């Protein structure tokens, strides 16, 4: 076979060709990597029906003027803010009593009962909101909510005396004794007032489940499963000694609410703890998106909550 004169005799022709091919491949590879496009970000048009009725209201067994606020949800896509909903017809009934709400003329979107009224523990309240067209389809929409007002816990007595608390600090040790009944609350949210000023203290429920966390927004209340029976219980709280003096009024107040309200409050906290509902924390990015629950029907067209709960309280003037 004749030697290829392009190459010196001692050079292997095939090896040279392979080497040249390899160099060409490397050059092409580098060019490809630098020239070719990779990740692109594109604007995506999203068309949605994003108008939901937002309800924020409460009804208790306190004799006060009760309020409900109505809004139309804002849009994340257009930046349209939440807007008030005016002109709605609202009433609340437990089939015994009916309470009508009237829109406040000075504050549109705020609806209030005609004068003071109160609910009764153990009753189911039905809320009706009509005469509004949230989604602007020309048809009037209606929304409802059904909620049980739990029977409030009933305080028997409140004892207060100086002594060492659980952390071995000197303070005023208090015990608020109460009974809870069938159709009572699933959770209680307790807080302490000293001379009508809100005061944080250590609160424990010794006869309950023992699970306490103020940040969890409630103590699990003992469950009464048989109608007609009740459970005795007490809540223990302490106040540091320098705060309380003779003649001060110590008040212990509990909001009594259902597990549905507790669930809503917990979900609301979890979804807004960063202060910004839009997740940047890695733990938020590792979550399945979900909507905070609501008791407003129809689901999917409404948000917010109508809180129906009862209030219990006991007060005592402190003597040394």
């Amino acid at each position, binding site marked *: 076979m004749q030697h290829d004169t392009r190459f010196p005799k001692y050079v292997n022709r095939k090896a040279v060709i392979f080497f040249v091919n390899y160099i060409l491949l490397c050059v092409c*590879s580098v060019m490809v990597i630098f020239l070719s*496009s990779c990740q*692109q970000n594109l604007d995506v048009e999203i068309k949605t029906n*994003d108008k939901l009725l937002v309800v924020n209201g409460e009804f208790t067994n306190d004799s006060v003027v009760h309020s409900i606020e109505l809004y139309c949800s804002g849009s994340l896509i257009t*930046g349209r803010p939440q807007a008030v909903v005016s002109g709605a017809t609202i009433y609340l009934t437990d089939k015994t009593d009916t309470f009508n709400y009237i829109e406040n003329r000075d504050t549109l979107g705020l609806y209030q009962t005609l004068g003071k009224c109160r609910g009764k523990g153990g009753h189911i309240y039905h809320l009706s909101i009509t005469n509004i067209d949230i989604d602007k389809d020309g048809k009037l929409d209606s929304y409802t909510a059904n909620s049980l007002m739990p029977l409030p816990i009933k305080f028997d007595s409140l004892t207060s005396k100086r002594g060492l608390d659980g952390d071995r600090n000197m303070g005023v040790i208090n015990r608020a004794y109460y009974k809870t009944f069938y159709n009572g609350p699933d959770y209680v949210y307790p807080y302490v007032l000293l001379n009508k000023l809100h005061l944080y203290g250590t609160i424990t429920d010794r006869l309950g489940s023992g699970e306490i966390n103020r940040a969890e927004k409630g103590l699990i209340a003992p469950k009464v499963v048989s109608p007609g029976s009740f459970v005795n219980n007490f809540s223990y709280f302490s106040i540091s000694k320098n705060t309380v003096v003779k003649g001060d009024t110590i008040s212990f107040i509990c909001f009594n609410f259902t597990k549905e309200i507790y669930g809503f409050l917990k979900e609301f906290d979890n979804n*807004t703890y960063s202060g910004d509902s839009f997740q940047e924390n890695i733990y938020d990015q590792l979550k*399945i998106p*979900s909507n905070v629950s609501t008791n407003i029907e129809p689901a999917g067209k409404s948000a917010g909550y109508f809180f129906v709960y009862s209030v219990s309280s006991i007060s005592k003037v402190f003597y040394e």
Partner: protein
Amino acid sequence: MKAKTMRQTLLILIFLFTIPSTYSQSLRTYSINGYVQDKESGERLIGCYVFDPEKSRGILTNSFGYFNITANEGNNKIATHYLGYNDQSISLIIINDTTIIIKLTPAQPFKLDEVSIISSGFEAKLSRPQTGLLNLNSKDVKRLPSFLGESDVMRAIQVLPGIQAANERSTGISVRGGSIDQNLFLLDDAPVFQISHMMGFFSVFNNDAVKDIKVYKGDIPANYGGRLSSLIDIRTKDGNLQNVAVSGGVGIICSNLSVEGPIVKNRVSFIVSGKYSYLGLLYKRIESNVDLTFYDLNCKLNAVINNNNRIYISSYNGNDNSKIGMNANYHNNTLSMRWNHIYNPKLFSNVSLIYSNYRYTTSYSTETNNNSLNYSWNSGIQQITLKAEYNYYLNSNNTIDFGASTTYKNFMPGKLEGNKTVIDNITKSEPFSNRVVDEQRVQEYAMYISNQQKITEKLSFKYGIRASLYQDMGGHWVYKLINHQVVDSVYEAKNKTYANFFSLEPRIGINYRTSNNSAIKASYSYTTQQDQLIMKTNGGGPLDVWFPSDNNIKPQKSSQYSLGYVHYMLNNLLEASIDGYYKHMTDIIDYKDGASFLESSSVYTINKTSYNFEEQLRAGNGYSYGTELMLKSDFNKLNGFISYTYARSFRKIPDINHGQTYLSPFDKPHAFDVFLNYNATKRMSISANFRCQSGQVTTIPFYVIEMWGKALSGYSNRNEYRLPSYQRLDLSLTIKNKEHPGQYYHSEWNFSITNVLNHANIQYVNFVSSKENPNIINAKGVSMLGIIPSVSYHFNF
């Protein structure tokens, strides 16, 4: 009455089994058994159709190339059909049971001046009572346009009808609406738990080491179980028994090299095949904090002890290192030891000991004003299986498969380790190790029996049953959940069984030949899946967790009904088929609304014991249905297929989407595929692949409300929104270098363009606050692949 019914059933079964053999006893019959192999390499050929051309009766070689057919005493003819090989016909005079080795010659390189046709084995397809089976080999994978210069097995499977990629950057697949964890991947019988490299761009299967790929879309044979949707059975090459052969390739992302050859000629052979990616080395030049490397290594030893015994030892070892923000390291390895034994011409056995291990570690570092936290998350799964499988060739009309297996599995769903440093008046660093989820162990037993029976020349049946027992073993804390909340926990003693799941899984198929070139097929299969996988993303990712079923999360079940029709035209070179299916699934799992994959409290709270992630899951029902149409050609110059699939997939799970039915993440109603390969000349071929399918579903935030001074965003219903449709056209040109006659060294260049149309296919959507107005959220779709040319060089000698 019951006893009478049972006796009647037994009599009918005996009748069915014996009538054909009773008839044939008037002539003496013997077995012709043996192997079909490649003449040049000695490689055993899987799925080759061996038949008697005069009686049009035949059988496919099994997974080890073995066949057995029944012949009458006297003159007989045996013929073969196998894609890529010349047909062969052998004349034999049979006077007793005969063992033969049939050696097939690879088909000649394509000649322009001939109208020669490569046979497609249509006879096997028309007579086999099996629906939803797709068969590929490494040559089919190479014909497709390469992805970033690499011929990838999973990318080839993703273009087939009824199968879709979980997303563009993933090699995970959804088969007939099922999720990506419902597919069983076997590599030489060893399960592979993680099939992706480099965040999903490539699969772990090295195409140069692959011999045969079978994809069962739901109608899974009785000898397999444990997954609901599909079985992908991949067999690797055994190694050339006669000559040393080297092949390899160099591409822009990775290179590969395979060496195979005899250790003892015609007796013992080996194959070592490896692939390594150096993309990370190139990226380091641009961004030193980024790392992306992976490798695969397949090794196999094949020893022919004697005519009746053969041993295979095959292993796979793969590793991924990626560092983009979060560090991730995946490690995959399998080991299979198999012994083939022929007891007698009618009884073939395969006994296997199989080990499979998958482990990954992700680590992350975060720092706030006064604190820093470094942690790593470890998860993995290991299993050891001993199984025995038998093929009993009862007679020419009945082939019985039976066997049993036992498997020990060890799950490590999640372990958290790290350091927490508090920078305050005093800097204090505390190491911690939280068993976020305890290790769990499972013992599993399975038995099966099935028969493929030919009733008449036109009608054949396949029926079988698989029984399995899945036992959860103790040695860890077991949680009792009521209303998805942990209410109690018990420490179960090691080796004590605290939960048992027994299942019977019938598999039935029927095939009726309506004419010489068409057939109707139908099947029903019931499958269960006890190993569960929870994924953060639909395509899989670093936080995926394998865990066993237990009393809180029960095994998933599926019933699938299939009906199909296949018709061959133009000298059986054009295949038209239509397949329909309906699948109903129960106890499938999904994350509840608002579920968190990594509770922040488990990271920041030291001394916290196991946290039960089952509280985050919900189980319910799902169903899917669809129709797959395909037109496939096998002409010499032009081959490929056109397919259209209409498929829907839904779920209904309590506590998700208000308990209402919602779209499965894998619902894509329309998919249209075209794959064409044109052999322009002896040295040049062009291929094109086009896919157009419905967009991915997703859940989007679209409203905001304000309560108590705080803003709260709201989302659509689960998977309510559909992204724009997906389209991609890939082209490839292969040019073989000139060769002299008798030259041993062969090489070729491959030039590919991925996404020729540069269509931006959105993989997911990010929602970010607008810089101009923070109250506006801009939806930014992220597309991973633009137009990407690639070039690679391949050689073999």
